[in-house]
């Protein structure tokens, strides 16, 4: 019995130790690994570049938001770019928060995101260069077709949110720190309302899942145009056209990227005449109007 107990405690202690060491070693490890990665890519990159770069650089990582992928824009644009340039683009579609973090850590070469404030911070902190406006679309406030909160009568997004809060109608937030989420939080702040958790649900998921949930719960939500139009649900647009609901997308090159030339080619494609024309046409056939409005310019 004693022997067994001792063995058991030893095992327990060992596992605890492992846990602790895993826990504490994590922090320095990540900082040391990211530091040389950043410096090596910044300083000595040009020297070894000709050798491996020409071989590997045929592939770049584009970190973007779920909306550009879910709407099908990238599936439409990137094959054309890849064919023309011979550069393969690997798309990581995540929330804007994570996309920017991917850029900061040097895990992506180019960002295509839509949260102007975070984008400007990203550039100001020295993580990004060559920031361009690419396109914009709109946000909609969508809800059940019988519109219990009477949002359709509202004139601005702010007023729409006030009506929802006044009626305590269920509102579903993405709550995932994405561009859409930041926009929504901004409107609540502007309206001076702190949503109450009894009717304000934070889904912590992407736009598609959140729309699905909104539909199931007969609730309201703020959505980007592209994702909304590409899903056929039982939801109505209850608010659109307000200036505060514009959704501009930016494309930024990651400064620590070792694939500057290739990254720049992608940016030139998106902001160039051909890319802009393709962006404007995207979705016209299915939805009667383009999902994105091209408006490229250097910031």
């Amino acid at each position: 019995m004693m022997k067994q107990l001792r063995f058991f405690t030893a095992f327990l202690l060992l596992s605890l130790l492992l846990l602790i060491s895993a826990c504490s070693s994590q922090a320095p490890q990540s900082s040391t690994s990211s530091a040389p990665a950043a410096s090596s890519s910044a300083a000595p990159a040009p020297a070894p570049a000709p050798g491996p770069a020409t071989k590997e650089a045929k592939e770049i990582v584009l970190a973007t938001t779920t909306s550009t992928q879910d709407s099908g824009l990238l599936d439409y644009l990137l094959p054309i770019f890849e064919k023309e340039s011979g550069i393969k683009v690997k798309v990581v579609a995540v929330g804007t928060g994570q996309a920017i973090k991917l850029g900061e850590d040097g895990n992506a070469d180019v960002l295509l995101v839509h949260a102007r404030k975070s984008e400007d911070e990203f550039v100001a902190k020295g993580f990004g260069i060559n920031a361009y406006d690419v396109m914009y679309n709109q946000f909609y406030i969508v809800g059940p077709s019988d519109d219990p909160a009477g949002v359709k009568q509202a004139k601005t997004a702010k007023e729409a949110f006030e009506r929802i809060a006044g009626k305590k109608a269920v509102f579903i937030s993405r709550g995932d720190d994405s561009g859409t989420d930041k926009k929504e939080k901004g409107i609540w702040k502007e309206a001076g309302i702190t949503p109450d958790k009894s009717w304000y649900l934070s889904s912590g998921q992407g736009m598609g899942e959140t729309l699905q949930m909104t539909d199931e719960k007969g609730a309201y939500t703020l959505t980007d145009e592209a994702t909304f139009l590409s899903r056929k649900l039982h939801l109505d647009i209850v608010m659109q056209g307000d200036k505060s609901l514009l959704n501009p997308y930016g494309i930024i090159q990651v400064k620590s990227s070792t694939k500057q030339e290739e990254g720049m080619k992608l940016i030139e494609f998106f902001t160039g005449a051909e890319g802009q024309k393709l962006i404007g046409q995207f979705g016209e056939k299915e939805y009667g109007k383009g999902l994105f409005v091209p408006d490229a310019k250097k910031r």
Partner: protein
Amino acid sequence: MMLTQDVWEVIWLSLQVTTSSVLIGMVIGIPLGACLGLYTFPGKRLIVALIYTCMGLPPVLVGVVVYLLLSRYGPLGSLDLLFSAEAMIIAQVALVTPILAGLTMSAVHGKERTYWETAKSLGASPYQLMITIVKEARGGIWSGVAAAFGRAISEVGAVMLVGGNIEHHTRVMTTAIILETRTGNFTAGLQLGLILLAISFLFNSFLIAGVLNQMKTGRR
């Protein structure tokens, strides 16, 4: 990340959902497994094969099926259960019951020969017979419970689909980790993951202590 109230809430809900589904799974799975281990009847092979298949059910598949059943536009939509803790429990019961049934079955089957004759010769009723053999096979059944618990608490696909990861309502540890990762908050995700691991470790330590004890008495 600090152990704020929100984090406790997430941990507490995880434990509630997991424990409920494992308990319900035990109530269904253990008698089912015991019957299958003890008795033979036509069609048993098919049922056994089905149970073994279901032990490896992909959680996302279970998630989609439960989602469609509970959806507002689905057959059980009127119950209004989608995106609730109950929905998560339903999905997890579907995942853990086959594991409990399957492992109970093999545990009981292993003990059956030794105890069947003795218990029967002592005049045990079929019910008493089953209780005796389940008792004798408890080591194997406990490992089934451990497996079920591990499966349920670490499961993410199904609970994300049917629970929806709603803050204060259906956010559990695994879905919170996904969210933290998606928002670029890797440290918080990792810390939550370690808490998850620690809970699994604690739970399994209790079980292992029990199983070890039984193995010792069995050896004598």
